[in-house]
């Protein structure tokens, strides 16, 4: 499993995409910190950008790589290696590369310019979000036979989480504005890892109330401490469950 991961990580490092992603993240973080004197505002800006770029790059890159390495997978399946180890090896190889890019691109600048508990929460959340979207990418990849459909599905997942979801929530609120919906809304947030990540960082910043309806609700409902634990736990679910489902699907997949 780790040997497979090693070969994949070495292969990815040779490509320029992950390097470009690292530099892009780093450029964004450094320019935000240099232009904004207020560190907290800087962290909010970085969070906003991170919540768009990190899921998009993670889900699309992981899906593309999965399909581009189809030959490798086929070769491995004919060898005495279990399918579970093949898929987990791929997961570890791909996620360690993308995660390193994030840790270097965002982690290093944040620790340098904004060392503190908020910075650490931001890094943790971004890492977890990366893992969630790679898990979702794997799910899209094992569910589809060809590359175009796989990448299409990956983009749909991102589109749903970052754009459609908010729209749906608004429509929902508007349509049912006569009822007390707070608890329902909190439950709904659990269906979007990006929302969970946003709430996680903003609760830590103690400005959740400023940032949209669900954030305020979370703070009211849980208080900051429990809210953080709760959304952290749910993000873990988003990381682990799609990966487990992918393993099950992959076990029965024809190559």
């Amino acid at each position, binding site marked *: 499993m780790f040997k497979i991961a090693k070969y994949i990580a070495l292969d990815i490092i040779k490509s320029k995409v992950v390097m470009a992603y690292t530099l892009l993240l780093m450029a964004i973080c450094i320019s935000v910190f240099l232009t904004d004197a207020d560190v907290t505002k800087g962290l909010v800006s970085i969070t906003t950008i991170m919540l768009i770029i990190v899921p998009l790059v993670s889900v699309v890159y992981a899906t593309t790589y999965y399909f581009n390495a189809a*030959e490798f997978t086929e070769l491995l399946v*004919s060898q005495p290696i279990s399918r579970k180890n093949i898929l987990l090896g791929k997961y570890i190889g791909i996620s360690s590369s993308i995660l390193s890019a994030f840790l270097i691109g965002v982690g290093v600048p944040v620790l340098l310019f904004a060392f503190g508990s908020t910075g650490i929460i931001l890094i943790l959340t971004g890492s977890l979000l990366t893992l969630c979207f790679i898990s979702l990418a794997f799910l899209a990849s094992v569910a589809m036979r060809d590359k175009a459909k796989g990448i299409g599905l990956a983009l749909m997942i991102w589109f749903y989480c970052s754009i459609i979801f908010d729209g749906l929530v608004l429509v929902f609120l508007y349509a049912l504005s006569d009822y007390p919906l707070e608890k329902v809304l909190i439950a709904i947030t659990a269906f979007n890892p990006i929302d969970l990540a946003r709430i996680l960082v903003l609760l830590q910043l103690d400005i959740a109330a400023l940032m949209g309806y669900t954030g305020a609700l979370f703070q009211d409902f849980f208080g900051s401490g429990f809210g953080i634990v709760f959304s952290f736990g749910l993000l873990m679910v988003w990381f682990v469950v799609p990966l487990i489902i992918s393993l099950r699907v992959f076990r029965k997949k024809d190559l």
Partner: protein
Amino acid sequence: MENIIEVKQLKKSFGKLQVLKEVNCSFGQGGIVGILGPNASGKTTLIKSILGMVIPDAGEVYFGGKPVARSFDYKKQIGYMPQIGRYPDNMKIGELFKMMKDLRNVHDNLDTDLISAYGLDAMYDKAMRTLSGGTRQKVSAALACLFNPKVLILDEPTAGLDPLAAEILKDKIHAEKAKGKLILITSHILTEVDELADDIMYLFEGNIKFHKPLSALKAEAGEQKLGKALTKILTQNV
């Protein structure tokens, strides 16, 4: 002699297309079996089911008496040469061989005959993506033999090889048979199967039409050549 591979009531469909319809067959400890059949008759699918690359809808494959479903250790004893060898594009030939040894954790008792016979060691720095189809086939063949497996499964091994390279491979197959190995070969080149095979298995639309010794087949048809014998038997059956 106990059978090393047994296939029992194997069924496989892709969507609506029934590719294998209750295939039953078994292969003994040694000898060369030629698997014949028209295009799309299910030869590759049968082979891939034995290797656990295609998951059957029903039925079971046994290797050395144990079911292969959800197991993988048995693949240590199989060398597989795919019909279309596909390898990581960016990898060099040398890196590929090194990686396979590393992944299997086997570094001794390797069979490098084909690597040297095909002069692959002189091309270790070439990337897989830049190789010609035939060279890729040579890599596949060398890889199938590398770990000295008990069983060789070769899916159209000589398709795309130049005559000289094909001759080298045939000699190798004979040599492996002499060591007592079981070798399954699919091929559309009947003269080649005629030279190599001890037994013939004929697949037609997902069913096994017959599976018998080459000599019996020829005797039945009263012909000396496999090509003629096959034509005679198949036209009689219609």
